[in-house]
């Protein structure tokens, strides 16, 4: 068993070496396919980070009329928290709203004087509502537009953010669609190229296959070197792709930091924490593809 494995490995390495240029071309094409997949992963990660960063700054501020007492606002807060779409609701009582206003206009004595002349707190309570996902804000707004709240709510300031959220969601959808399209095209090209490359590799070894069959080598011994070669192709392509990806990150990180000022996005950290999954799956997918291609390519030569 060990002897056969050693011989299969030796034959595979011989094949790899004898068709060096074909082997290099195969690995390069596999790398291109893997790089395109990684590009899509990176775009997704960047888009997601941008979305989360903006999302974090977004909320719907609901300003209640001053006549509405705090208990009523607490009830509405409880109702909001029951919604699936809502992740948090910050409650700022009337006094808090006044304090916030004063703080915001502490450098404007005219406003502060006018406020003093009123002799009462003109502000109502405020609720700052955060959704679980930016796409869910319209549903929260719709909930607040119910007729029973109409007399209680002075103003909702979601409109300013709505545009930004729509933009981000549209951008994310576009990135996803673009990514999937590119991945599908590259995937299809990769499959065709790999199948053809393996077929050429098998074709160049049809002599050996014929002799092996003639002298009684088992089918698995004949397939072995091609499977092992597929393993070498897949492993080398994945390792080189990982190297190129990390080099690319070092190059791109300063530009990303400038682009997303204030947003913490380290692609290296993102990849480090998901490296096993990302590259493991890519390796398995490429190996599966090359192994299946070689299985079918060899099959036609197994009849001697």
């Amino acid at each position, binding site marked *: 068993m060990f002897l056969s494995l050693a011989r299969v490995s030796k034959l595979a390495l011989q094949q790899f070496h004898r068709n060096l240029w074909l082997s290099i071309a195969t690995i390069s094409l596999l790398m291109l396919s893997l790089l395109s997949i990684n590009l899509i992963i990176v775009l997704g990660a960047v888009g997601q980070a941008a979305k989360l960063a903006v999302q974090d700054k977004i909320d719907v501020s609901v300003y209640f009329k001053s006549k509405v007492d705090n208990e009523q606002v607490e009830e509405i807060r409880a109702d909001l928290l029951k919604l699936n779409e809502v992740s948090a609701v910050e409650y700022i009582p009337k006094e808090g709203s006044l304090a916030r206003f004063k703080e915001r206009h502490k450098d404007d004595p005219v406003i502060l004087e006018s406020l003093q002349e009123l002799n009462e707190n003109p502000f109502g309570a405020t609720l700052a509502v955060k959704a679980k996902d930016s796409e869910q804000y319209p549903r929260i707004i719709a909930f607040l537009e119910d007729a029973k709240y109409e007399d209680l709510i002075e103003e909702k300031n979601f409109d300013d953010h709505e545009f930004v959220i729509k933009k981000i969601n549209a951008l994310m959808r576009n990135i996803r669609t673009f990514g999937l399209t590119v991945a599908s095209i590259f995937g299809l090209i990769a499959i065709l190229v790999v199948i053809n490359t393996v077929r050429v590799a098998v074709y160049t070894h049809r002599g050996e296959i014929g002799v092996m069959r003639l*002298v*009684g080598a088992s089918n698995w011994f004949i397939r072995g070197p091609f499977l092992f070669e597929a393993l070498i192709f897949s492993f080398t392509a994945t390792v080189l792709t990982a190297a190129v990806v990390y080099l690319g990150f070092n190059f791109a990180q300063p530009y990303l930091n400038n682009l997303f000022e204030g947003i913490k996005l380290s692609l290296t950290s993102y990849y480090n924490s998901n490296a096993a999954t990302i590259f493991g799956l890519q390796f398995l997918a490429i190996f599966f593809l090359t192994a299946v291609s070689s299985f079918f390519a060899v099959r036609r030569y197994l009849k001697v």
Partner: protein
Amino acid sequence: MINLHNVTKTYPPNTVAIKNVSFEVKPGEFVSIVGQSGTGKSTVMKLLIAEELATEGQVKIGGWDITRIRSAAVPALRRQIGVVFQDLKLLPSMTAYENVAFALQVVGAPSQRISEVVPQVLKIVGLEDKTDRYPIQLSGGEAQRVVIARALVHRPKLFLADEPTGNLDTLNTREIIDILTKINSFGTTVVLVTHNREVVNQLRRRVIAMDHGEIISDQENGKYTL
């Protein structure tokens, strides 16, 4: 050793290669199958190594019914049969020694056995001083002798040679036939497919003659009478 009983082989859609062929070859025999091109000689060879399966009838090798042999069992059959074809099927990137050793390597033979057996069989075919030559550096007869050596490494009980002298001159033909006779003298059953009249007549062994896919004569100490 070989038993064919009413064997017919039809290729789609309806080309009959051999029809109701029956013969038996006893262990240690040397049999020549003769006939013009396209008479079904090579089809018989293909049936014996399970490259093709019979459409009708029964094929037995050493008591083993291989009429409907499973694909997975074919390697086990071929390890017991030495096969030589006119197209040598030598690997050009390997030396004579490596070509012969390859046949043992791919069936998992230990390295020690390979280093013992390969020089032995190369000596039997008289190539002990040309072991490191590549096929392109060998003459037609020498290359054919490498193929014979390769077919001998499994110490087969049955040796099949399909037109082994087809591309050779008279001198090389004589040498190859001498080697086949030598192999037969070790007790190995030899089946030679040929349309070379001189070879068959000089051998003076059993001759099975085929024409249009059928056996037309089967004679001990026969001659090429077609």
